[in-house]
């Protein structure tokens, strides 16, 4: 029953949604709670097929509010619980996630972005960046990994559970409909066999009695005075700022002498990478910068790139949601800024190459 879902390491060719299901199994996720929404559905489809074989559980809820809140219940009871959603479901998920932020509940959520606002399209976008990093009535005490390939979807889904349980901030794997539905190759593996330690979950509710004595736990999200709240939030902010440097991840290349650095995240960064390589081949000085964590944002890292280059070109399948994070992060920089924004639509290397050439 509970033997390891993956033995050793193997190369597979599958959809991103299947990848997520495998990764959650590999990360020893105990239970998934979910509500259908395209393009996330197949995570549940694969999970419901595989989970029972490994003693894992699933609950289909009545909506995303419930999927989010049941996930929080699962986590509170000391289980590695997760959910997945997209678009309008992500909008609704902000209510439970705001509770997770306030109560430091290490929930894991996979987002497969689709077109917005509203129902829009069920296909693809990068328009859920603002909401995933700073949604709800709070201050963004969250961690957001933006993946770009199936290998990363696998790696970061596993990592998300570790990050969440270690730092106790709700953690998101932010992908998109393309990553969800496309097939490409990757290696899947058992993380522990690879030396990746899996952080152990701990119960808040239902912790067993110690020496026959049970110390009841009382957790809440409501405070009676403004000052109580300020004290709590100030503590959280300190925690967040302290762990941020440990969490931040990014990628860059060819930035040292670049005239234009293409800044992009997620699946768009694949096209950006190709474009920069192409431009370099043509002898044009392009560079590549990609935040992997959108929250915390690799601001210092981008700033030092900005200090070296003439222009940052922000490329996104949204109207500048990542660019906003970047600009606030490197405020004070006088680097030129240009944009290639296509909300809800994929971006190709060719378009980026053309855009960069127009800037040079």
């Amino acid at each position, binding site marked *: 029953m509970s033997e390891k879902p993956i033995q050793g390491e193997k190369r597979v060719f599958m959809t991103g949604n299947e990848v997520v299901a495998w990764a959650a199994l590999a990360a020893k996720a105990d239970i998934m709670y979910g509500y259908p929404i395209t393009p996330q559905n197949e995570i549940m489809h694969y999970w419901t097929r595989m989970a029972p074989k490994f003693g894992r559980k699933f609950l289909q809820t009545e909506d995303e509010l419930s999927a989010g809140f049941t996930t929080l219940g699962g986590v509170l009871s000391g289980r590695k619980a997760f959910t997945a959603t997209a678009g309008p479901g992500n909008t609704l998920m902000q209510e439970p996630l705001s509770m997770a932020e306030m109560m430091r509940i290490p929930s894991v959520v996979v987002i497969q972005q689709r077109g917005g606002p509203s129902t829009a399209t069920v296909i693809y976008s990068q328009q859920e960046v603002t909401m995933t990093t700073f949604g709800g009535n709070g201050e963004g005490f969250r961690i957001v990994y933006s993946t770009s390939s199936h290998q990363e979807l696998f790696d970061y889904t596993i990592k998300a559970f570790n990050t969440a349980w270690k730092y106790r901030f709700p953690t998101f794997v932010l992908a998109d409909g393309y990553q969800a539905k496309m097939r490409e*190759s990757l290696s899947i593996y058992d993380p522990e066999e690879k030396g990746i330690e899996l952080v152990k979950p701990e119960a808040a509710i239902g912790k067993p009695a110690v020496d026959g004595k049970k110390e009841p736990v009382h957790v809440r999200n409501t405070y009676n005075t403004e000052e109580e709240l300020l004290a709590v939030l100030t503590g959280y902010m300190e925690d967040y700022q302290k762990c941020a440097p440990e969490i931040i991840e990014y990628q860059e290349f060819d930035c040292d002498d670049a005239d234009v650095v293409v800044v992009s995240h997620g699946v768009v960064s694949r096209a950006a990478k190709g474009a920069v390589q192409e431009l370099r081949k043509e002898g044009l000085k392009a560079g590549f910068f990609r935040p992997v964590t959108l929250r915390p944002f690799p601001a210092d890292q981008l700033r030092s790139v900005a200090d070296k280059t003439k222009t940052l070109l922000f490329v996104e399948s949204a109207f500048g949601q990542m660019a906003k994070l970047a600009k606030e992060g490197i405020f004070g920089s006088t680097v030129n800024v240009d944009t290639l924004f296509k909300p809800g639509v994929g*971006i190709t290397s060719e378009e980026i190459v053309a855009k960069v050439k127009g800037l040079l």
Partner: protein
Amino acid sequence: MAKAIKIALAGEGGQGVQSVAQIIAEAANEEGREALYIPNFGVEQRGGVSVAFLQIGEEQIGSPKFQTADIVVALSDRAVRRTRQYVDGNTTFVYDSSIEGVEKDIPQNAGRILAIPAVETSRTELHPRVFNIIIMGAVIKATNVVSEDQARAAIEKKLGYKFEQNPKLRELNFKAITRGMELVEKAQ
């Protein structure tokens, strides 16, 4: 970066373009190449044209969708109209010669235009069921993205369990590949 080969396959719901794309992608993957396949999807897929986007190369593929393809294969009148947008001067545009009433819609800007009698071949020579395998043969011939052997192996992997029960099916499928390749050769 060696450019990846970009393939768009489009047809009606029952024509099996998605499985063709998937099998080719898996075959390429087995050959150790980088393959990325994504179907189109939307809310109105019910009666819509089904399009498969497939890219095969030596390095990780960039954007999962593309603006123009190296080869576009269209298997119905609606598919022809739907896929015109993926064609430019470097594109090989393949369509089934049995499709009626699309004369005006064939993208004349294509680098090459090939009409192949896949429907007819499947009906008369082989079996309607292997229509999509003929298409697969046509695609691998037109693109060389995978070897014929690898294509056979991929089909074997996918349909092997059926072949066990009915070995004639294997032969039929393999023949379909070969015929598909020939059709393209002839059309060129």
